[in-house]
């Protein structure tokens, strides 16, 4: 700059002066913006962390340790001898719903009602009016009861807690001063002030009906089953007679007297070949009342089945294989299907019948073997609410288990006592322990005993199943239902949905991205891309709706056509490409502009031919009925193998063709005319096609001949809502996502690389594959990962189109249930804070972690690739 252009004397170009100091408002806006941006950045991180933390917070209680702890000691209810030990042994007991009182029946036929707080005896009831019963049976908790006597008679009845709310005027003055929760002994029961301020009175009520004569000799064992059609009674008397009765109660409207009608028969056990050496120790009826189990002290079990009102022996088994051990305690688990057998060496085994083949008798399986105890098992009791059970041992040890997952929930000791009787409160929060000399009440702190980490991921042997399995079945109609909480079927379903949707969507999306970024003129590309992106705004519920109500029923009818099109259409394109080579060079160059159209036409023709080939293929390969073929009723596995193998066989043959065939043409075909070369290429392609088909058939034939049939695993019975349908529908959901990101990645590859490659004489396809795709790999990978994440988390499509059966089945024609769909289905109905509820949150946490890990891996790999190509 020369001197003449120097501005005026003020030293300013424009004649104005500016303060060098930034204005206050500028600083203020800058500070505000900095803080706001920092705040929203940190806020979003915190928000995501909070979601994870909240999920973890809800899940955490599942993993807290469980224990039982002594709450209070009590005197035993039985009449004591001079030495201080009772002369009787407790045979049954139960705690009330509120955890305030307990009843206990002893061998002398006396039922004592005792307050838990203080241990005061509230009432003593003598069963049988002074005649000591010889056998007894109690239904679930309280409810129906039955007593057998030495004269061969049986008396049924009803025993239950009687609760009533009283007005202040009805109660003694002392009770009026009761604070909330305080109790007052009154009228053989307890008065308590409820949190609502009412006075509630509760006592044990026992009403017995008339006697029923079963036989002449003493009833030795008795059991009672509550069935939908009434009570069923089974008994064994001293004459080794097995008595079976169905009872119907009739209440006389005028007198209120209950008349019992008993129908049934008597069977002589020796007549069935059943003797009583060693002596019977247990008689049990199952839930239906048609199956009776007789257990001897040595563990040998005889099962009797009601066959047309006649009882026959339907199985014999040894439930205590250990020859030195004796059966010391037996009871049914909740639901009267699983039998708990404790022996004199301290082992407790849960036996249940496994599902048997048609016409065969089920065999009891030792489904669960609980942790061996320190001494003989002297008491076993099962909760009436879940699979919780308690075991007492001769050395005073008390343990609480969950039978399903074999978890030891807690252990404690009542020192110096043989445990005679245990009772779990209806709410599973209290355990009554009656020893030989003293009794006590324990707190059970195991609200989520049904949950165990192992059962989430490892096979568990559930009641009635032939073997340990991975099952998710969180609820059922029956109260005695065993929850099956394995996450594996849900994770499997999630992966299955993801796999099939990416199998469908990923190649389409990636190829579409390569097509628009590398083959389309920029102007066209600018119009095509937004159109595909609009697909992303399609609500997934609409996709799911279409998949479930339109695609699924349609695919069911045209599944062979769909598969045929999938294979024939690409072949049509390849054939079209080879035919195109036959065109004279000049004509081909002139028609260059319509080549994409020609590809489309050959695709459509291929699809059309495939579609109309399908009926013939069905006849040829699937014996005319595809669904019957899938079921394995007709045809052989060969056609299945062919469908599976044709793609790898084509790839292998194509690779060999390129590796060796092209070199051959290069060396031999020098100087040939282009038309001759094109014909040679076409012939080569046709031969390769035949070889690929032959290879697939041959390998398929080998596999088929060696006894492997793809039916039963990847192909199986056709279900309308299946993985194929979900794959197509969810493919549509992930295609725009993968397409957009990978298209951006491809376009961001610098143009000078394309120019270099094209300038060197590479075709657009060679340029795309060799030069453009490698640097864009990071973007393509993260596109695939984000698509994967979307597929993993997608809910509505799978919810509507996947059938929601939580089964682990590779079959592409079967449904599944994903973690996300499971949450959508079950969370609204789960009882808040129950094991089920928290396990669902654990499923949500698993889903969260899966997508989190996927995205993190995607980001890490993307950064790794980007570092490699950052110098471009």
């Amino acid at each position, binding site marked *: 700059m020369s001197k003449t252009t120097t501005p005026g004397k003020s030293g300013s170009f424009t004649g104005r002066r500016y303060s060098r100091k930034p204005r206050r408002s500028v600083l203020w806006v800058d500070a505000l913006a900095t803080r706001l941006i920092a705040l929203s950045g940190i806020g979003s991180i915190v928000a995501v962390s909070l979601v994870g933390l909240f999920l973890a917070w809800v899940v955490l209680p599942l993993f807290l340790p469980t224990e039982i702890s002594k709450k209070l000691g009590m005197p035993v209810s039985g009449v004591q001898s001079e030495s201080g030990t009772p002369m009787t042994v407790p045979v049954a007991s139960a705690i009330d719903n509120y955890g305030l009182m307990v009843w206990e029946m002893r061998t002398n036929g006396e039922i004592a009602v005792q307050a838990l707080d203080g241990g005061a005896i509230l009432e003593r009831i003598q069963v049988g009016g002074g005649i000591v019963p010889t056998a007894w049976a109690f239904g679930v908790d309280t409810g129906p009861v039955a007593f057998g006597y030495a004269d061969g008679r049986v008396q049924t009845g009803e025993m239950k807690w009687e609760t009533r709310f009283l007005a202040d005027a009805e109660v003694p003055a002392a009770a009026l001063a009761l604070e909330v929760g305080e109790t007052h002994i009154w009228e053989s029961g307890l008065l308590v002030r409820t949190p609502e301020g009412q006075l509630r009175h509760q006592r044990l009520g026992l009403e017995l009906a008339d006697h029923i004569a079963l036989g002449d000799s003493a009833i030795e064992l008795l059991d009672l089953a509550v069935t939908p059609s009434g009570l069923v009674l089974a008994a064994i008397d001293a004459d080794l007679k097995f008595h079976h009765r169905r009872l119907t109660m009739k209440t006389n409207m005028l007198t209120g007297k209950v008349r019992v009608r008993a129908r049934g028969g008597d069977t002589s056990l020796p007549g069935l070949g059943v003797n009583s050496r060693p002596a019977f120790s247990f008689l049990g009826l199952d839930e239906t009342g048609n199956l009776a189990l007789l257990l001897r002290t040595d563990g040998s079990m005889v099962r009797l089945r009601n066959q047309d009102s006649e009882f026959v022996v339907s199985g014999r088994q040894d439930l205590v294989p250990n020859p030195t051990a004796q059966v010391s305690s037996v009871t049914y688990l909740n639901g009267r299907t699983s039998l708990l057998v404790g022996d004199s060496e301290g082992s407790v085994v849960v036996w249940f019948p496994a599902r048997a083949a048609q016409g065969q008798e089920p065999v009891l399986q030792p489904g669960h073997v609980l942790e061996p105890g320190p001494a003989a098992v002297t008491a076993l009791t099962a909760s009436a609410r879940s699979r919780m059970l308690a075991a007492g041992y001769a050395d005073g040890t008390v343990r609480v288990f969950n039978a399903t997952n074999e978890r030891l929930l807690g252990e404690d000791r009542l020192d110096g006592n043989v445990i005679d009787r245990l009772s779990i409160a209806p709410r599973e929060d209290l355990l009554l322990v009656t020893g030989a000399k003293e009794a006590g009440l324990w707190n059970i702190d195991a609200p989520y005993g049904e949950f165990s980490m192992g059962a989430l991921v490892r096979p568990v042997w559930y009641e009635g199943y032939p073997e340990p399995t991975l099952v998710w079945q969180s609820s059922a109609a029956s109260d005695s239902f065993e929850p099956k909480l394995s996450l594996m079927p849900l994770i499997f379903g999630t992966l299955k949905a993801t796999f099939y949707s990416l199998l469908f969507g990923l190649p389409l999306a990636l190829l579409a991205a390569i097509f628009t970024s590398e083959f389309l003129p920029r102007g066209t590309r600018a119009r095509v891309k937004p159109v595909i992106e609009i697909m992303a705004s399609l609500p997934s519920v609409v996709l799911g709706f279409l998949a479930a109500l339109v695609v699924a029923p349609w695919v069911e009818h045209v599944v062979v056509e769909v598969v045929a099109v999938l294979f024939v259409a690409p072949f049509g394109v390849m054939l079209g490409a080879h035919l195109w080579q036959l065109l004279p*060079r000049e004509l081909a*160059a002139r028609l260059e502009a319509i080549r994409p159209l020609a590809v489309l036409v050959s695709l459509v023709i291929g699809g059309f031919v495939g579609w109309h080939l399908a009926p013939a293929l069905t006849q040829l390969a699937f014996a005319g009925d595809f669904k019957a073929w899938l079921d394995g009723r007709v045809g052989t596995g060969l056609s299945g193998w062919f469908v599976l193998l044709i793609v790898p066989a084509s790839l292998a043959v194509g690779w060999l063709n390129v590796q060796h065939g092209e070199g051959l043409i290069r060396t031999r075909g020098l100087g040939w005319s282009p038309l001759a070369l094109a014909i040679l290429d076409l012939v080569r392609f046709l031969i390769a096609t035949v070889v690929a088909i032959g290879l697939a058939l041959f390998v398929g034939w080998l596999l088929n001949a060696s006894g492997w049939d793809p039916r039963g695993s990847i192909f199986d019975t056709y279900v309308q809502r299946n993985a194929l349908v979900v794959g197509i529908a969810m493919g549509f959901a992930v295609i725009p996502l993968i397409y957009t990101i990978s298209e951006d990645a491809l376009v961001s590859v*610098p143009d000078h690389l394309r*120019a*270099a*490659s094209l300038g*060197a*004489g590479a075709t657009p396809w060679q340029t795309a594959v060799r030069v453009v795709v490698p*640097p864009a790999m990071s973007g393509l990978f993260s596109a695939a990962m984000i698509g994967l994440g979307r597929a993993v988390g997608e809910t509505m499509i799978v919810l509507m189109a996947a059938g929601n059966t939580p089964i682990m089945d590779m079959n592409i024609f079967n449904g599944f249930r994903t973690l996300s769909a499971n949450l959508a289905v079950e969370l609204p109905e789960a009882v808040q804070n129950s094991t089920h509820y928290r396990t669902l949150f654990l499923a949500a946490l698993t889903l969260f972690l899966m997508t989190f890990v996927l995205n993190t891996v995607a980001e890490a790999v993307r950064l790794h690739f980007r570092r*490699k190509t950052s110098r471009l």
Partner: protein
Amino acid sequence: MEELQAPPAMDRLSALAAGTVVPAEIHPELQDEEMILEVADFNLSYGSKQVLFDVNLPVPRGKVTALIGPSGCGKSTLLRSVNRMNDLIDNVTITGDMSLGGDTVYGRGVDVIELRRRMGMVFQKSNPFPMSIRDNVTYALQINGERNRAVLNEVCETALRGAALWDEVHDRLDESALGMSGGQQQRLCIARAIAAEPEVLLMDEPCSALDPIATTRVEELILKLRGDYTVLIVTHNMQQASRVSDYTAFMYLGQVVEYGPTAKLFTNPLLKETEDYITGRFG
């Protein structure tokens, strides 16, 4: 465009600025050369903007021909038209033709891929592929289907020696080409171009992004290639043109103004405009 009458020399620049086509001054020495590339009445427009006007340029075989001229004069466009790289841009209109070794470039039924394989191109910015040095050099052979490793290695060595790069990189042929220095990268691009044995090597300002030392090495390389290859080079740097080229064409506003032997053009041009440009009086 209607006035085909040649205006007076002093008015040539204003006539060019007005879009009038003025025939170039072509030195007679060129008539003795055997031509490999002929550009005939070549016009090119980007949309409605015409960038090349009736360009006629014969390129002699085995010689280095430089295109000089101020920015935007169309020399790069002309170079890129030779191997039809302008096809990649939308909205390009072309009239006229070129011929490479007697074969038409823009005629109907030309296989562009084959055409490009007959030429090599080196760009302004070095653009090695993100792959190993060896794969970069042998890229043209690989896309042509050559799989024989021995052939590839041999060509790789020959081309790298030809590009005076062998001694520097022979022990790291399998490392990424992106780890090389800028000058090495540009020589690698030249090696990549000559590995395909092109009939014409097109260079688009190959040294504009290089430091003086790297520039010297590339210039030495171009001098070494002279005789074996036909080189058509676009350059901004007139010293470079005078150092490396046998013939130089001066272009201005989409037209060739003067075309002749480099020594003559730089020392004794026929036109005053050329002298003015070369001595830096405009441009």
